[in-house]
């Protein structure tokens, strides 16, 4: 499903973020990506989402080398990936419902289907009563769950999460992780970048460790 073959990434500033990364994640697998701060966890997720391009090596998704994807095909490719960020990236001037509905609107779904899908996603993250509220009215945990609902609402085949529990207390963090596990059980491949070792151990899933590149 996700395969990295000798992937390196060097930024134009000269910073080497990843060096010779090799791994393979099976379809429907859930794994944690861990490593020191600056080891390249976020860069690796960005490479999968085509937000960055590897300077060396190849990245395969479902057997396709994503570097061969044309620029105009990138939006459609990204619609198959649900991304969750530590700082949520929610739109402040839109309600919870509107934030979650955004990927479906982009996909051109009918309003009645959007309603049904968003309500289902809200139900899964236990936020059904908050659909009319704005992000500023929510707690950090609720915002993260809205972010997750938005990432999964169009049922992507891959879910990528970059430090999704970074700002949350341990109970909330565990709750969020169980939400990811639930979506993994629905069939999505889940890759979570985190440096919370206790939480990772508790989830008992595969762990990919990134070593910081030595200069």
């Amino acid at each position, binding site marked *: 499903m996700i395969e990295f073959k000798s992937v390196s990434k060097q930024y134009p500033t000269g910073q080497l973020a990843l060096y010779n990364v090799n791994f393979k994640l099976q379809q429907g697998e859930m794994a944690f990506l861990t490593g020191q701060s600056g080891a390249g966890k976020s860069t690796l997720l960005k490479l999968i989402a085509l937000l960055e391009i590897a300077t060396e090596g190849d990245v395969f998704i479902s057997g396709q080398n994503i570097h061969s994807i044309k620029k105009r095909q990138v939006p459609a490719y990204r619609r198959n990936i649900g991304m969750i960020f530590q700082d949520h990236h929610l739109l402040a001037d839109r309600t919870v419902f509107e934030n979650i509905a955004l990927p479906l609107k*982009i996909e051109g779904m009918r309003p009645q289907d959007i309603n049904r899908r968003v309500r289902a996603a809200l139900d899964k993250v236990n936020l059904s009563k908050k659909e009319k509220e704005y992000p500023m009215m929510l707690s950090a945990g609720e915002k993260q769950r809205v972010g997750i609902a938005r990432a999964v609402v169009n049922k992507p085949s891959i879910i990528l999460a970059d430090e999704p529990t970074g700002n949350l207390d341990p109970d909330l963090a565990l709750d969020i992780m169980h939400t990811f596990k639930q979506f993994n059980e629905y*069939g999505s491949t889940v890759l979570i970048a985190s440096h919370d070792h206790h939480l990772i151990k508790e989830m008992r899933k595969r762990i990919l460790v990134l070593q910081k590149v030595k200069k």
Partner: protein
Amino acid sequence: MTAKSKYSTQASSPIVSSLGHHKEAMQYSLLRLWHSPLSTWITLAAIAIALSLPASLHLFLKNLKSLTDDKRQVPTISLFIKQNISEQQARDRGELLQEMDEIDKVVMIPRDEALADFRKIYNFDEALETLGKNPLPHVLVITPHIKLLGDPEMDMKKLAKKLESYSEVDLVQMDIEWVQRLRGILRITERVILIISILLALTVLLVIGNTIRLNIENRKEEIEVSKLIGATTAYIRRPFLYTGIWYGLFGGIISLVLVHVALLFLVTPVNDLAKLYASNFALSGLGIKNTIYILLVSSFLGLIGSWLAVGKHLKEI
């Protein structure tokens, strides 16, 4: 992409989906304008003022042209007879002219009658008394057969030249001359208005372009998030383009209101002036054709302004 196929998506057909996106972008861009009334009104006022100037100049030109385009009035030629020619000789010449194919009507105005009229109209009694004798000549006012003339202006000139050759005639004056002069002035005015219109259209482009640039800056986060979740450039661009169109369209509507308010303000004094010249002239509005034209042009300017701004600034995000 198993999960995707496992849960089938109910995405609409491409056409329905595209129409839905357009509808959403139209509504969303309108709502955004509605939610920031101050900046919207300031921008609309700037656009409306910039558009109302060429629109009102165009209207001014249109009204002036209507003076020269009045085909109902048949042009006439005035023949001023030499002072030493008697009234009878002048009448004889008038009768001979009446026989000509290209002349429809000849009216003789004897010098005494002209003087009496002059006294009546201008109340110049005392001044005329000091002259001692009547300074006015006999005048033959000739109305040509307009239907027989191919090109009225050219053939009138030929006729005038022919009339000038008669020994009794001192001076030939075509009352079409003022029209020709006015047309000359109008041609220059037209060019000036075109230049002003182009400059003001550029101003509208800049105003809308800059407004859209600020909109893009303010919605940078939204654009980034949309890109992350798979929005196409067209999807992101669309609301900004509609915003530009709304600015152009509403700016155009306000400019039309301004122009017609100004027109109402001028109707009475212009009518009074026209009465003084015994003219039926009345100010006319822009009309449906020009109104639609102005709205189309203003909307198009909005689209172009926003397109240029979006093209340049979206790439930077």
